[in-house]
């Protein structure tokens, strides 16, 4: 499938395989999943590679069971992940919500395909952008990362694990069919260059331990099952010990903890890649596979002496509010390019506060946006 060249450790890799390699580099120990196009290569690769490192792979009976097993494994103390696509991601929603509530670190990869319903299993789409933020019921705060190349798939998978362990929360890695199936030559970093985060463990004696301790970091140290800290985990709203509560002060504290651990660390979580933004007056905003065409379009515009720039959020949730507010100051126009009928454009409108004009280019016919299309649209609305 992939070949190795002798020079500089260059490898021809598929996005899905780069994601699996990223997971292995982040020292994933457990994968539970269910076959679904276009994500299956991740499961197949890890079924082969995980046992070689004494890791565990299990194919569950459905996606609901897959995410449940992942959460169970994470509570038992191992780094765990699953990978799926639209229909499977929909099935996982209830238990993803459980992981938010019970603050269980895990990584969920969604290789997007067209929807709704069974939709377009082998076609590209970015139509789950809002679902990764609002998919499960209740008030919660999500972290989602969106790579736009094979190398970024590798890097952001590692980052997804690191953020997940650091903030005790599920992290969604949002690939799409093109990024998942595309092959590129990449040079992967050496293991020594890769930073891998570890779970924060308690140092107090078991009788003092609170699994959901409220502290100034908003993230509580996490003991695993079987380590001598016998605690309760529930999806019911709970007190710091993990026991169900209906006291309004405890309910409020819990929900604010879930919010604050993301909001107070937003500068650590949010990453935006930009190109030619120093003097840009017009920016193309795009993420995932659409960012590839956008980048090309921006370069074409620069050749025609149009002061264009690229804004590519690598973290799409939480949305880069501060960056966008700041960037809007210098911009006349922001062109939002997405492979859906308009999802993240609403966030761009919200955060630009009326300072820049917003244009949208949306494609939802199962095909990629082309650089030409974006360039033409840029000239048209400029």
């Amino acid at each position, binding site marked *: 499938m992939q070949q190795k060249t002798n020079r500089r450790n260059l490898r021809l890799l598929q996005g899905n395989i780069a994601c699996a390699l990223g997971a292995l580099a982040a020292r994933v120990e457990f994968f539970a999943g269910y076959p679904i196009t276009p994500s299956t290569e991740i499961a197949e690769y890890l079924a082969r590679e995980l046992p070689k490192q004494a890791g565990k792979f299990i194919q*569950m009976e459905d996606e609901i069971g897959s995410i449940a097993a992942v959460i169970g494994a994470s509570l038992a103390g191992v780094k765990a992940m699953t990978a799926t696509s639209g229909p499977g991601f929909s099935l996982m929603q209830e238990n993803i919500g459980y992981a938010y509530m019970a603050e269980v670190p895990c990584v969920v990869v969604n290789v997007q395909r067209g929807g709704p319903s069974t939709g377009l299993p082998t076609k590209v789409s970015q139509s789950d952008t809002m679902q990764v933020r609002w998919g499960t019921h209740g008030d919660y705060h999500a972290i989602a990362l969106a790579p736009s190349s094979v190398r970024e798939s590798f890097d952001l998978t590692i980052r997804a694990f690191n953020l997940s362990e650091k903030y005790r929360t599920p992290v969604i890695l949002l690939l799409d069919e093109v990024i998942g199936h595309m092959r590129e030559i990449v040079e992967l970093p050496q293991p020594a260059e890769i930073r891998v985060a570890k779970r924060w463990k308690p140092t107090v004696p078991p009788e003092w331990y609170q699994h959901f301790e409220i502290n100034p970091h908003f993230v509580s140290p996490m003991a695993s099952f079987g380590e001598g800290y016998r605690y*309760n985990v529930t999806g019911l709203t709970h007190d710091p010990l993990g026991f169900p509560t209906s006291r309004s002060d405890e309910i409020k504290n819990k929900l604010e903890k879930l919010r604050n651990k993301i909001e107070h660390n937003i500068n650590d979580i949010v990453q935006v890649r930009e190109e030619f933004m120093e003097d840009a007056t017009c920016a193309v905003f795009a993420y995932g596979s659409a960012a590839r065409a956008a980048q090309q379009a921006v370069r074409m515009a620069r050749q025609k002496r149009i002061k264009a720039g690229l804004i590519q959020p690598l973290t799409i949730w939480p949305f880069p509010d501060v960056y966008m507010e700041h960037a809007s100051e210098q911009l006349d126009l922001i062109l939002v390019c997405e492979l859906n009928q308009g999802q993240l454009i609403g966030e761009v409108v919200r955060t630009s506060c009326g300072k820049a004009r917003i244009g949208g280019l949306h494609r939802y016919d199962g095909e990629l946006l082309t650089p030409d299309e974006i360039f033409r649209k840029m000239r048209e609305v400029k």
Partner: protein
Amino acid sequence: MEQAMTNVTHHYLRIKKKFPNVWCPGCGIGIAFGAIIRAVDDLKLPQDEVCMVSGIGCSSRMPVYVDFNTLHTTHGRPLAFATGVKFAKPELNVMVITGDGDGLAIGGNHFIHACRRNIDVTTILINNNTYGMTGGQLSPSTPYEKRATTAPYGNVERGFDPCDLAKSAGAVFVARGTVYHVVQLQKLIKQAILKKGFSLVEVISQCPTIYGRLNREGDAVEMMKWQKEHAVSVEAARKTPPDKLKDKFLTGVLWDIEFPEYIEEYEKVIKRSQGEKPKEP
């Protein structure tokens, strides 16, 4: 003797933290709970190494009250969560507490596949023929013609037999007890915990507050008397003519076979994968 039994149970309960409990007076779940705790105590399993996983429902509230590693999951999914816990940390004794609604309706798919996979998890399914927590709706084990709030004119579906289902789906140990025959129940739970592989203990219990009232089956005492009169042990059934067993149900060990356990099998997978020459992807 009674005091000694109470002391054993109290040692394991989170008495200061979570009591009183949610169960109604006359409910059978507390009796099953006591039997589980005494079984764990008899086997001298360290509390740190016991993980109790449950779903949603009356019986699934059990883990909150007991001082083990406890995991109260989503409706119908405890077996899938437990599979993850056990597979990731095989040294834990993983026990699943579920009910007829949680385990057989919404969790039916996980139930048959956990049986088939044969991972070393002990499942205790407390069967009270109804959804007690939501107020007495029809469950997959509500008998034909019995009433529920969502079957006000009588149930027209047949109920599942969880033991038959588990047996045919591949479980290696299947037993049934009742909350009336609590000493036998405790023994069955012990056997199930000791058994390597997927084991099921169905516990016939009563819900006098809702199911009993809707079906005019009397109070808890009368419902337990029904269990006493209708339960026949497997050993006794062998000596009883079939026509006398018509309205009876069997208790005891119904099925006990040997089959390779999932995690032990996966250890072979790990060895096999490491024995091969490393291939370039």
